[in-house]
């Protein structure tokens, strides 16, 4: 596997608001091409985390670096598209004028303005003042604005909050469309369902602490999963496919993660693989308590 390009790297990030510890040692990496979800109830630190990496909230301690730390944060942000909480534009400017202002800030020409308005279906309303827009339209304009520079990564904070079902559907379609083009996405939400639908990776936060960080698939299984390692990884995966209890297996940095449809004991799996001439060098069965953690998370809401 080729090493993934790191877009954002966060290490031991802490944030204090007076006596309240909003973030505790948050650490994670964002790799190119994946769709990440940050999950957690309101007040769990999602927005604070995004605020820090987006240069609007000051960190108390810890490190973060964009694009391997090769550029200053505000320069890096020109290659990032981000929407935080609610769409913020100048109400007295038209949709088009607002996007042109963003172009000026990002030091790019106006060439993409029309294309992005088209993408979010606002071409007809481009000369209407922002103040006349409905929330759904405002949110779509925000997405157009975030995409102006064909960003390396799109960051969305609760993008469907407050929208009606139709609006939610439109936004999700746009996000899926963008994800399909290979854009990295980081999506914060308190809706498990939303993250499951669009994300490949997830990060679960509660009271500023990271509870889980990894694949979405690994999060929602209730049978637990295996971590395996063998000399011939590819052979291992193809053999695993033939086992009836295995849902799928994923190669992650040399380790093979096996997700299950049915109950399977480590002893049985080991025996099955050994019969297929595979000798494991590493075998761990992980009990997944995330379901429970999730119930707790959603209960707090």
């Amino acid at each position: 596997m080729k090493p993934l390009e790191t877009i954002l790297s966060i290490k031991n990030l802490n944030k204090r608001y007076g006596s309240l510890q909003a973030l505790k040692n948050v650490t994670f990496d964002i790799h190119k091409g994946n769709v990440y979800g940050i999950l957690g109830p309101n007040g769990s630190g999602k927005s604070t985390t995004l605020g820090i990496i987006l240069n609007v909230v000051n960190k108390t301690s810890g490190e973060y670096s964009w694009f391997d730390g090769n550029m200053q944060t505000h320069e890096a942000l020109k290659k990032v598209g981000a929407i935080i909480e609610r769409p913020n534009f100048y109400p007295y400017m038209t949709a088009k004028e607002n996007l042109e202002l963003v172009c000026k800030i990002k030091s790019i020409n106006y060439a993409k303005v029309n294309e992005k308005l088209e993408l979010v279906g606002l071409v007809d309303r481009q000369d209407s003042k922002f103040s006349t827009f409905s929330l759904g339209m405002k949110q779509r304009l925000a997405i157009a604005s975030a995409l102006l520079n064909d960003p390396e990564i799109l960051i969305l904070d609760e993008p469907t909050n407050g929208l009606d079902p139709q609006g939610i559907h439109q936004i999700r379609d746009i996000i899926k469309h963008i994800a399909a083009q290979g854009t990295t996405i980081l999506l914060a939400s308190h809706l498990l369902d939303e993250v499951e639908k669009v994300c490949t990776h997830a990060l679960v936060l509660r009271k500023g602490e990271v509870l889980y960080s990894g694949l979405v698939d690994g999060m929602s299984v209730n049978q637990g999963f295996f971590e395996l390692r063998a000399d011939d990884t590819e052979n291992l995966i193809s053999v695993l496919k033939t086992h009836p209890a295995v849902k799928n297996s994923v190669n992650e940095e040399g380790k093979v993660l096996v997700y299950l449809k049915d109950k399977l004991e480590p002893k049985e799996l080991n025996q099955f693989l050994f019969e297929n001439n595979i000798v494991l060098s590493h075998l761990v069965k992980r009990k997944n308590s995330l379901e429970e953690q999730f119930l707790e998370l959603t209960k707090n809401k």
Partner: protein
Amino acid sequence: MKRLLSIELQKIWKNKGSRVLTLTYFILLTFIALIASIKFDLGVFKLHLAEMGIFNFPFIWHFNTYIASILKLFLAIVIVSMMANEYSYGTLKQNLIDGMSKKEFILSKFLTILLFALVSTVFIFILSLILGFSFSSYTEIGIVLSDLDYLLGYFIKLIGFFSFCLFLGILVKRSAFALGFLLVWNIIEGILKGILTYKIFPDSTIAAYITQFFPLESMSNLIVEPFSRLSVVKSIGTKIGIENIKDYGVHFYSIIIVLAWTLIFNLLSYRLLKNRDL
């Protein structure tokens, strides 16, 4: 720099309120010319301002910059609201997320202040030239171009005052409250000045020495009132026995004090912006 200015000017120009205020400001500036047409005819006592020498070179530089600086409040409102709006619209946050650094943000506001001050100064320069050549008794080039330091004083005064307004806009985040704060500050300075001058240090220059360092006082010291300098007023003064020894010049140290405040206000603005979570 051009990018930052064009960002800020778009924000101001597209806003109807700011556009109207800015235009009103420049239209009112040209109304200074109307003073020329003020004529009182009270039988024995005839008053025609243009003929009293207010448009004589070089006095006109002093007179026009003084009158023009009264109108600076119009642009002050524009500056305060352009800053306070960024908070209320949430666009400050969005600008930073879009890739503007906090330094660039303050710089774009400050460049606009510089531009406003510069345009005002050039405007007054041209207006005074026109008025002067129409009404002045002396139009020798040496006299015309003397006392131009009033224009410098005017320029510095505007920059200092607008920087103060910008700082208040960032500090208070609401335009109405920021302007209210400006008024309150003005009153506080007035009270302090009164106490220092009449209670603590009567009959000495210590009070004036201290108050010249107050922000608003230092700005108003740049260009002192020109009326008592008019020949008519002066001659009345000498007749009733008041010797006028007032110093009307634009002083180097006044300029330094105002520039120091300008620097302080802009640094404080930056610090506030840097340390505040949005």
